């Protein structure tokens, strides 16, 4: 096995050969899939734990306090303690609720981010699903989550939950359009929906720098719309605490509540990951044209670090405006999407096509 932090292709391939050497081809594939599944399970769990901790710390620093400090060094074990508490809590089910859908909803919300995370390219070769329609797959699958939210609100037998779910349904369906259109703006340049090719096309510079003004507009729209799509930040109307107590997950407790919580944070990560891949080159190091010296220096930093570095920057950006802005109202939210973001993104695509046709991009 020749393991290299810069290119995982060989490493993955050697694992595959090793498996096929021991088992029959069919069994080897199943085992391979199982390994990948377990890896993602571990990754998602760790991601949830660390993101919750980071969010709490960032929020605390914005608010001039310390945040969790007691459990573990600087409170690092706080989220672990919280999860353990949630696991041991009684899963309450409200009276007269639709028990089957109530239980199902918590799983559906978690399915969507799991399916999406497989398509995220973490590094060269470290990429579970690499379709030719990767970007399309991500946007399509990520909208399964809204079904879970609607079901949760509907089956809870609680008016606050229902209002929250309806709000969130309207919100996610609307903002998806802008997210997709802003991503397509970059696809105009790459000419491919395959995520590995989108990353490869940025080997001489990231699209946010190369793509002229339309790329920057597309990025801003992407950040706003995808934050709204994930019910975060100033767009957290679905769980607007001061209006709807907790929105669609008001009636959930214990581990099911943890599922909603986890799904929210994984979605949060996915937004940043997709944003980083499409606009900031994914795992591709920062390259400027043909400056050999600079490019080589940048290549020393492993792609995984580049990827997670970009993701962290975007995560921080999204947290930043979550902890600064007040919440929008539902009609303002929809107006923002249908009257501003959507027309702007459509015009932006035309603009980008013009840029691409005339070769005004780098």
């Amino acid at each position, binding site marked *: 096995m020749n393991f290299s932090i810069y290119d995982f292709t060989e490493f993955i391939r050697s694992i595959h050969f090793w498996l096929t050497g021991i088992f029959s081809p069919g069994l080897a594939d199943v085992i391979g899939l199982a390994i990948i599944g377990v890896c993602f399970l571990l990754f998602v769990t760790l991601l949830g734990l660390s993101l919750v901790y980071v969010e709490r710390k960032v*929020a605390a620093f*914005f*608010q*001039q*306090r310390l945040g969790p400090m007691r459990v573990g060094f600087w409170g690092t074990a706080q989220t672990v303690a919280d999860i353990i508490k949630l696991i041991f809590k009684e899963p309450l089910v409200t009276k007269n609720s639709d028990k089957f859908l109530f239980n199902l909803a918590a799983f559906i919300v978690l399915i969507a981010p799991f399916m999406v995370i497989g398509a995220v390219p973490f590094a060269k070769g470290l990429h579970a699903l690499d379709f030719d329609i990767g970007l399309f797959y991500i946007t399509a699958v990520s909208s399964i989550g809204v079904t879970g939210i609607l079901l949760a609100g509907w089956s809870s037998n609680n*008016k*606050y939950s229902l*209002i929250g779910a309806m*709000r969130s349904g309207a919100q996610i369906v609307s903002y998806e359009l802008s997210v997709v259109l802003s991503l397509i703006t970059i696809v105009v340049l790459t000419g491919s929906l395959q995520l590995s090719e989108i990353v490869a096309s940025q080997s001489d510079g990231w699209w946010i720098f190369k793509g002229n003004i339309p790329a920057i507009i597309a990025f801003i729209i992407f950040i706003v719309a995808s934050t709204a799509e994930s019910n975060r930040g*100033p767009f*957290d*109307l679905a769980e*607007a*605490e*001061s*209006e*709807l*107590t907790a929105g669609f997950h008001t009636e959930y407790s214990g581990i099911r509540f943890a599922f909603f919580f986890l799904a929210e944070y994984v979605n949060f990560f996915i937004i940043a990951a997709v944003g980083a891949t499409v606009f900031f080159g994914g795992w591709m190091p920062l390259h400027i044209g043909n400056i050999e010296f600079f490019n080589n220096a940048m290549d020393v930093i492993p792609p995984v670090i580049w990827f997670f570095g970009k993701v962290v920057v975007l995560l921080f950006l999204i947290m930043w405006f979550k*902890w*600064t*802005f*007040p*919440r*929008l*109202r*539902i*009609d*303002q939210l929809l*107006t*923002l999407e249908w*009257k*501003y973001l959507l027309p702007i993104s459509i015009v932006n695509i035309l603009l980008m096509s013009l840029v691409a046709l005339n070769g005004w991009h780098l």
Partner: protein
Amino acid sequence: MSNIFSLISDKDSKGTSSATETQEYFVNMGPQHPSTHGVLRLLLTLDGEIIRKVEPHIGYIHRSIEKMCEKDSYQQIVHLTDRMDYLSCHMNNEAVCLAVEKGLQLEVPDRVKFIRTIISELTRLSSHQLWWGVMGMDLGAITTFLYGFRDREQITDIFEETCGARLTMNYNVPGGVMFDIHPNFQKRTKDFLKYFKEKLPEYDELLTGNVIFVERTKDIGYLSKEDAISFGVTGPSGRASGFACDVRKKDPYSAYDRVDFKEIIRTDCDSFGRYKVRIAEMYESLHIIEQLIDNIPEGDFKAKTKAVIKLPPGEYYQRVETARGELGVYVISDNKKSPYRVKFRSPGFSNLFALDTMAKGYKIADLVAMMSTLDLVIPDIDR
């Protein structure tokens, strides 16, 4: 960009009738709800997200303070008033003390008047700071809450040093104040003034100028001047509707006739107006304290009173301006050591019942903004 949501017309938010058959439904907001800030229960009649009717149901924290007053001595009544509007406890105390002093025809020393006024304004500041933080939190900007509390802490520290308590201070007694001010009081207050003058513009930066905030509050919760007067909406909420109701100006008590300050009146009549009035009042409070803090006259901190106070038979009324509006204390005495009857006219009670008129046709999210700009304190409503 500054008016990104300007296309949202009023018609949208007031709701037009839709073609499909819809049904109105009820939602209980409270008694346990994050944005009622206490045990207030609002029975909402909703059409989708649009409010058709708001019915406040009160009484969840009723402690019959008025009845308890009938068996207590006048000194003890002061303690009970702390528990009404706990954020303007000093003003509540002061109202009772002023009523008793009126009955006894007792002239309190100038020093007392100055101390009472300064502490009143500090209390008003701390109340408005808390309101500002909570207002932001209700609208989803949780960070403001901690900014508000950061500054409020400075004031509660001053109170703690002055009288030992941070929230329910009990600093007033009939005839004066309980103790003389701490030797550090003037210095610490001046330090606070300097500190808060730097911090107050931060409030504007964080919330007032924010597009989302302005759109969430502008033209929301319209309360006309006529409605404000007929509902008896006083305090900053009334003044935002153009109703000049500042007791400090109309009927000056303590040292308010010796200081120069503006009565903030706006004619917006909406949530944003009420917000701006409170922000401007904070500047005025700072201005008032500045004028008084260096000129506290020497003298007694308490006029001599008998151990058992008996008011001459008759009726006495005293009103003060608390952070929420006009608080009236009506005392009937029959020459016993406790009053025959006490009635409080609390500002929160009158302000709350304007909510139905304000909220009709707006959305649930707007109701939260309206409730925070009315600055309701539930124990003040129920008493």
